């Protein structure tokens, strides 16, 4: 049963991933990204990460994709890609490099621990409540309290930066 859910979610994530980089229109890329994010939320649930799954839906699917769509709508038709390419053969070279990268990653997964990562019984036994808001929050507010506070400063910097960048420029 779990395998069926995994296959469906993984297929949707892959389809969305291809859609992000292959769509001619940015709107379709953004909606494909939404598909990827939703599928990953399902996979997080399979991996006992309920809190992260909820966070994924609220922050990524809810806020970030909406922001992307908002900006896409804001910039008009002429914002598409130019026909001329400044770097010749960029597309085939990029594809080859990305494929080589995938090869390296796959090699690492297949050879890690002598291929033992393919054992189904490898996952540790986790207590109930693992990955719940309580479970994550307990670690977040004890061992990771300082990074958590720093994260709030990072968010503040982001807000200030967006306001500064977004305001009308003085005519030079």
């Amino acid at each position, binding site marked *: 049963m779990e395998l069926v859910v995994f296959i469906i979610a993984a297929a949707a994530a892959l389809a969305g991933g291809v859609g992000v980089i292959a769509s001619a229109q940015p709107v379709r*890329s953004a909606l494909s990204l939404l598909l990827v994010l939703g599928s990953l939320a399902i996979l997080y649930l399979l991996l006992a990460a309920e809190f992260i799954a909820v966070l994924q839906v609220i922050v990524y699917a809810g806020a*970030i994709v909406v922001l992307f769509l908002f900006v896409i709508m804001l*910039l008009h038709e002429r914002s598409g890609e130019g026909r001329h390419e400044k770097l010749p053969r960029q597309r085939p070279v990029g594809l080859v490099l990305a494929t080589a990268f995938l090869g390296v*990653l796959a090699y690492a*997964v297949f050879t890690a621990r002598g291929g033992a990562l393919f054992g189904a019984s490898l996952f540790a036994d986790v207590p109930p409540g693992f990955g719940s808001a309580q479970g994550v929050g307990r670690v977040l507010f004890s061992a990771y309290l300082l990074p958590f506070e720093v994260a709030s400063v990072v*968010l503040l910097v982001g807000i200030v930066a967006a306001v500064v960048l*977004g305001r009308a420029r003085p005519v030079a």
Partner: protein
Amino acid sequence: MIPPAYFLILSGILLSLGVAGVLIRRNALVVFMSIELMLNATNLAFVTFARLLGSVQGQVVVFFVIVVAAVEVVVGLAIIVDIFRARETVSVDDVDLLRG
């Protein structure tokens, strides 16, 4: 249970798709979405290893990645809008001068 390698391979494929998107596409918005794709691929790997090791710390890292990704999107999109206002383009090929 599903073997952890399946999750890791899916994560690797998504990461490579993101790399391909950054290398191939010239629309700054799509390049940006590809970066988000890569961040999510690493998040999947983190959650997989958190489950694998029975440690919740991997999920805490994902929490911080999500926070940083949100800030990154806000600042990045603001910059893209600003460039579009000044130059009427979001193609990364058209923005290749270091001076304004």
